[in-house]
């Protein structure tokens, strides 16, 4: 993963954040991410994120479950070990339906949770850089990535004009990594400072 330069700005209110997100996109800056304390309706649209493909994945997991259940049960009761149960036929579809339903739900649910974790890069042990300690507490944090073409000072003044405060520049890992937070990472440093104080 690559280490990149970012400009980070804090917002107090989603009403200020929304127009700022739109302005950033029209100004042509590269929006790395926006961190909010709660899900904000319509923010994904404002950020220009494409629609999630999680539901398509869920559908595929669901029909996989359906097929697994039906094919396994029909193999068991027809080919592997045919039994006469209450005089019912060897492929009693109504009796298979509850189990088929359960396996459909199980496959879809478990599969979607795992896909969600993969898409959001959350897993036990997976770490990502924290731009501001209060980014999921009570502040809205907007992170703009600096490319060769963008001027840091210009972005900072732009964010100030858009209503942000505590604007700072950070050099950080853009992706995720396994293990622990890096030693030069901010939360770790603060811990050291409080211990030393």
């Amino acid at each position: 993963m690559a280490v990149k330069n970012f400009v980070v700005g804090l917002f107090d209110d989603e009403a200020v954040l929304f127009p700022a997100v739109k302005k950033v996109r029209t100004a042509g800056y590269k929006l790395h991410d926006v961190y909010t304390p709660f899900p904000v309706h319509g923010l994904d649209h404002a950020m220009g994120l494409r629609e999630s493909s999680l539901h398509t994945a869920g559908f595929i997991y669901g029909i996989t479950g359906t097929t697994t259940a039906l094919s396994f049960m029909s193999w068991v009761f027809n080919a592997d070990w045919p039994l006469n149960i209450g005089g019912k036929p060897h492929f009693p579809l109504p009796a298979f339906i509850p189990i088929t339903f359960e396996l459909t739900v199980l496959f879809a649910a478990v599969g979607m949770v795992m896909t969600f974790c993969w898409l959001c890069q959350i897993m036990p042990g997976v770490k990502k850089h924290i731009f501001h300690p209060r980014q999921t507490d009570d502040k809205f944090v907007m992170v703009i990535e600096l490319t060769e073409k963008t001027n840091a000072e210009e972005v900072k003044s732009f964010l100030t004009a858009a209503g942000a405060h505590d604007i700072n520049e950070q050099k950080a890992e853009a992706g995720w990594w396994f293990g622990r937070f890096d030693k030069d990472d901010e939360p770790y440093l603060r811990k050291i400072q409080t211990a030393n104080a």
Partner: protein
Amino acid sequence: MKDQFVVPARLRMTSFVLMGVGLLTFLIGLIAFKGETRFWAGLLQNSSFFLLITLASTFFIAATTLAQGGWQIAFRRVPEAISMAVPILAAILFIVVMILVMGGKEDIYHWVNPEHVAHDKVLNWKKAFLNKGFFTTATIITLALWIFFTMRIRKMSIQEDGWDLSRETGRKILWRNTVVCGGFMVIFTLSVGSTTPWIWLMSIDSHWFSTMYSWYTFASTWVSGLALISLFVVYLKRHGYLTYVTEEHLHDLGKFMFAFSIFWTYLWFSQYMLIWYANMPEETEYFQPRVWGEWRPIFFLNLLINFITPLLFLMKRDTKRNYTAIVFIAVVIIFGHWLDFWQMVYPGTVKHLVFPWYELGLGLGFVGLIIFLTANQLTKAALVPKNHPYLKESIVHHT
């Protein structure tokens, strides 16, 4: 903003044509069947189905009010207007069932003939429940209560338009709506959720019994009622009314139709599987003509239209937010559940599978009647209940 509905000439014309078709079919049926089994079976099927799907609108208002829902306020006047067809349809149904019971039409309700009951052990046990006195009393009480609550809810809603927009008024609106809707919900559960479908429809197969039957009927009419509401909402939206209703509201109606199509299937299956598994003659007699008799194609068509189609069609987000797609699936759902009622009533009365020209004609007549009454009611009040405290929540609604 267009807030006052004016009935377009084309809609009025359509409703008159449909009602004309219905009346013509009724007269042809009267001559062709000379007042025999099929004539009455068609009337019973159509009048009960269309009464219950308009009553589903009252249920929609009551359920969303009790759940403190806010999203539906922007189009709340639509289910209100549809529900005002309940008194007229209830009158039609009342006339039909009273002729059937008092006229002793034993080919529809086997139990109305005391001779059958006297020599029949099963019917003798059911005598306390299946008799003319109980049937009439229960029908009158439920219909009267449905009409009372439906009119009350509508009247309160129109009355609130004249009030002011203060905090106290808002509280008062919420409180009295909750009380009345709570009352209706109790009545609804005791009638549609338990007794009414048993005496009106299940008693056709008078030896058979199923406790799932009422829930199953309720699920059928509730999902069709939602489809009916969606159709009117889309119609008004297309004609420039209901400015506050967006595809977000449509999306939620689509979700409701999707969810309750599956709910219907769940209840259908719960009834079917237990009977199939236990395989007891007194229970399987209901499914014998439907699964292995002449009605076999309808039995599978029923599942295809009412389960597979909404499941696959409404699964995608885009179809739930598309006006044309919602109209298509709403029509499919209403037709499908009409077919469901058809196969509930007919195998026990007419016995043989017939091409349903007479039943479809009557159905179109009822559709025309509902369009006519609803359009008339929509003109009687503003399309937005402007003083309702949850109106803003509905305007900013976002799924």
